[in-house]
């Protein structure tokens, strides 16, 4: 029921970690989500997709890894760094 509150907090953590970096370049937010975390994964995904495609973000997407237990953490951020691909 509180997926939007959690999604907002995830976005806050992402912005904080990006620091001076450009949130527009954020591509992926990796999350661990426990089955007993009290959150509905599809609802959380919807909230995150909505928030991460609006300013200050560009078009980042969440990658949710389901786990047993009550884990709820941001695991990594992927940023497009502007360099050419190898």
């Amino acid at each position: 029921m509180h997926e939007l509150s959690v999604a907002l907090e995830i976005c806050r953590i992402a912005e904080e970690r990006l620091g001076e970096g450009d949130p527009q370049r954020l591509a992926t937010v990796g999350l661990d989500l426990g089955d007993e975390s009290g959150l509905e994964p599809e609802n959380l995904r919807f909230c995150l997709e909505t928030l991460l495609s609006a300013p200050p973000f560009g078009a980042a997407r969440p990658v949710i890894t389901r786990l047993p237990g009550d884990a709820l953490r941001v695991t990594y951020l992927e940023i497009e760094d502007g360099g050419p691909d190898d």
Partner: protein
Amino acid sequence: MAVRTIEVRERVMERNDALAGEIRATLARAGVVAFNLVSSPGSGKTSLLERTLDVVGEELDVAVVTGDVQTQNDADRLARRTARLVQAVVTGGACHLDALQVRTALEVLDLEQVRLLFVENVGNLVCPASWDLGESAKIVVFSVTEGEDKPLKYPKMFRQSRYAVLNKIDLLPHLRFDLDRAVANAREVNPELRFFFTSALTGEGLPEWCDFLREQVRGGVPV
């Protein structure tokens, strides 16, 4: 485009939990025992607090913070029972109180004049279980009109609570509610749960409840 990865590994609740830790330390310094009252809507949290304020409000220097999605109705009701300030948090849609809201509400209370604090959470058996508010313990209130299987349906809330109040027991003669089964269900998810059986309407069970509160205040903040 090349992609760079930043390792984060930060718990989403980290900031709330850090704030809750600060609240817990502040309350401990002031010698305040704090209970986070959680329940479904309509289980009788406010009625139980009205009765509690009548009996031990002055004796135990009780302060209350209420949380509701809309209206200050609960705070208004409780303010009639105490000379102390009753702080109302209107969440404006959010389904739970968080530590930041509680810290803000506590800023205007003189905690040196308080020995027992109740935080009456938003009526909801799901979300408030996930937010630590810096309380000494959670107390789950449920009522005999709700069905014996509430603890099995909402195990997280009953697991996180140290005490349970089964309210509205004056209605038992009119219902097919199996009290023993309700208690057994609750103990199945949390064997340590200590029960109180009350009627906020008739006052039944209130003496035991109030004696428990006196004990808790005498015992101080559990470390």
